[in-house]
Each structure stands twice: as structure tokens, then as C-alpha cells.
């Protein structure tokens, strides 16, 4: 059971809702993933064409907890405004703080992320900041009161997987709130690895929406997150430099 603030989830896989080929595939992928948390962005509505469909009309919103993000914000003030807009939907008080500080790498702005986190906590939000894999920043976000820490595995949408497992392990070790690995996951192996390192959950989007078969990949990610979590709980063997035989060395039958 994953607990974030007042929320509890069976599933440790959080799914983004961007860039699917179409809404039917997306709906099937979301169902197959068995996720309980969907992320969204807040954007201007096309007021000239109200007939444009929206993914929210395709799913039963009561079945999911919404985790809107503040993507598009360049500073804390903009992030707080987007969070308040999202909350005015009346659907959720959880917010993924996302303040991008570099357009090319889409890496988060650490100073503004911390500021936005502090302000949104004051305003009563359940705050999940997307952060780099900086160990000290992760600690400061937790000290500020963040309900979970969401370090990136690698740059958003890059599919490079966990590029700094050491930092991620440090963050996981020091944190008393859930750590969700967010961004950069490319394959089920990446998701399983993040979970084996001890992450409490994984948030991914492009790895599923951009897969050749998003529905099958959604199921693969569900299984990978399970496998990684079980592996972590079961406790893997230590790595050794040399071979250690699995079969008994006594009683080998030979011809005399």
C-alpha cells in the first residue's frame, strides 16, 4: 500500500496522459496498466470549437485520482497559479510541481521548485515536486513538507532509464516520504530497476504512449513495477566477483 498524504493506492504505477495515438488506445492502455493515478496538464480551452473531444470524457473520472502538473510554469509564481486553477476543477488537491528551468534538457529549476512547494504546502495542497536527482534538494523538499519526492530517472521523454542509480539510492535511503521515480523511464527493465532500488512508485508517460503497442506496454509496465517491488521486498543477493556453484560440490559420481 502506497500512502501519499491522505491518499492510499494499491498500484505503484502512475500514468501520464499525453501523446497517445488516439483516445481509444489510451483508454485501453490506462485500463491495462491498472493505475489509480493519472496526470494531466492545464491548458487553454479552444473556445471556438467546443466540440473537440477531451480524454476526460472517455474515462470514468471517479475511478482515478487526478494528479495535475504545473507544466508550462517557468517560476514558482506561475506554478502556484496553475495549481490553483487545477484545484478549482474541484477534482483534487494533489499537485505535481513541475517548474522547468532549461528548455533544452527540460530539467527542473531547483530554486523555483522549492519555492513553489513551500507556497503550495502553505495553501493546503498535497504536493509532489518533480525534481532532479539532487540528494540535498530532495532532503530540503522533504523538510519543507512535500508529501512525496519525484526525482527524474533521466530527462523527460528521453527514455534513457535510470542514469544515476547512486543518487537515486541516496534519495530513497534518506527519505521518510514516498519517492516516485518520474521521467526518463524507457522500458519495463528501467521501471523494474527503479523499483528494485527501493522507489515507492514510478510515474511514466512516453514509455507507454510512444510504444509501438501502448496497450501491451501498459501491461508490461504494470508487471515490471510489480516485479521490481517484489524483488526489492524479497532482498536480492549481493554481487560477487567470482562464481559460486549452485550445485553441491560433495558426492559427485565418477567412474573409478
Amino acid at each position: 500500500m502506497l500512502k501519499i498524504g491522505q491518499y492510499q493506492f494499491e498500484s505503484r504505477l502512475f500514468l501520464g496522459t499525453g501523446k497517445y495515438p488516439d483516445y481509444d488506445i489510451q483508454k485501453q492502455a490506462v485500463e491495462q496498466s491498472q493505475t489509480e493515478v493519472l496526470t494531466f496538464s492545464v491548458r487553454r480551452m479552444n473556445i471556438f470549437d467546443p466540440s473537440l473531444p477531451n480524454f476526460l470524457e472517455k474515462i470514468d473520472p471517479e475511478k482515478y485520482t487526478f494528479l495535475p502538473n504545473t507544466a508550462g510554469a517557468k517560476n514558482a509564481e506561475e506554478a502556484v497559479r496553475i495549481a490553483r486553477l487545477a484545484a478549482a476543477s474541484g477534482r483534487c488537491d494533489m499537485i505535481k510541481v513541475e517548474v522547468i528551468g532549461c528548455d533544452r534538457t527540460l530539467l527542473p529549476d531547483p530554486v523555483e521548485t522549492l519555492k513553489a512547494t513551500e507556497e503550495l504546502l502553505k495553501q493546503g495542497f498535497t504536493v509532489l515536486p518533480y525534481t532532479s536527482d539532487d540528494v540535498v534538494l530532495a532532503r530540503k523538499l522533504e523538510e519543507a513538507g512535500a508529501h512525496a519526492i519525484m526525482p527524474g530517472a533521466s530527462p523527460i521523454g528521453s527514455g534513457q532509464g535510470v542514469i544515476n542509480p547512486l543518487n537515486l539510492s541516496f534519495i530513497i535511503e534518506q527519505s521518510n516520504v514516498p519517492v516516485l521515480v518520474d521521467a526518463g523511464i524507457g522500458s519495463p527493465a528501467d521501471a523494474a530497476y527503479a523499483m528494485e532500488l527501493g522507489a515507492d512508485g514510478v510515474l511514466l508517460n512516453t514509455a507507454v504512449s510512444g510504444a509501438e503497442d501502448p496497450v501491451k506496454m501498459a501491461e508490461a509496465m504494470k508487471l515490471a513495477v510489480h516485479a521490481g517491488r517484489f524483488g526489492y521486498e524479497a532482498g536480492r543477493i549481493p554481487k560477487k566477483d567470482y562464481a559460486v556453484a549452485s550445485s553441491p560440490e560433495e558426492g559427485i559420481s565418477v567412474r573409478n
Partner: protein
Amino acid sequence: MNLVINGNSMELGDEVSSVTMLLEHLGLAEKPLIIEHNQDILQKEHYRQVMLENGDTLEIVHFVGGG
């Protein structure tokens, strides 16, 4: 009456006097959306009471796919 909605300047009849009437006029009454009126984020239950005036700015936003 001139309103600036999502950055677009729009000329509307004076009968579109409240936020609720504006949404009906735009065909958005049933849509899940969020409104900011002159930089003030509105709660749904206040749409009927919020009156529009010439020069007001509105942002009409909603949830879209994102990670």
C-alpha cells in the same frame, strides 16, 4: 461589450452579462473547465453571480493530456 478571452479579443452583446451566460453563449456550459476572471480564479458555484464588464479578461482552461 469587448472581452479578452484566452488572449482573443471578442465583441459580445450586452445580454451576455454573467459568466454563466458567457459559457452558454460559447456552447461550453456542459464542459469541465476552469475560469479565471480578471486574474481571479472562480469557484463553479459563483459563475452565476460574476458579472462581466467591458474590458474584462478571462482565461478558460481545462485538463489536457500531460505527464
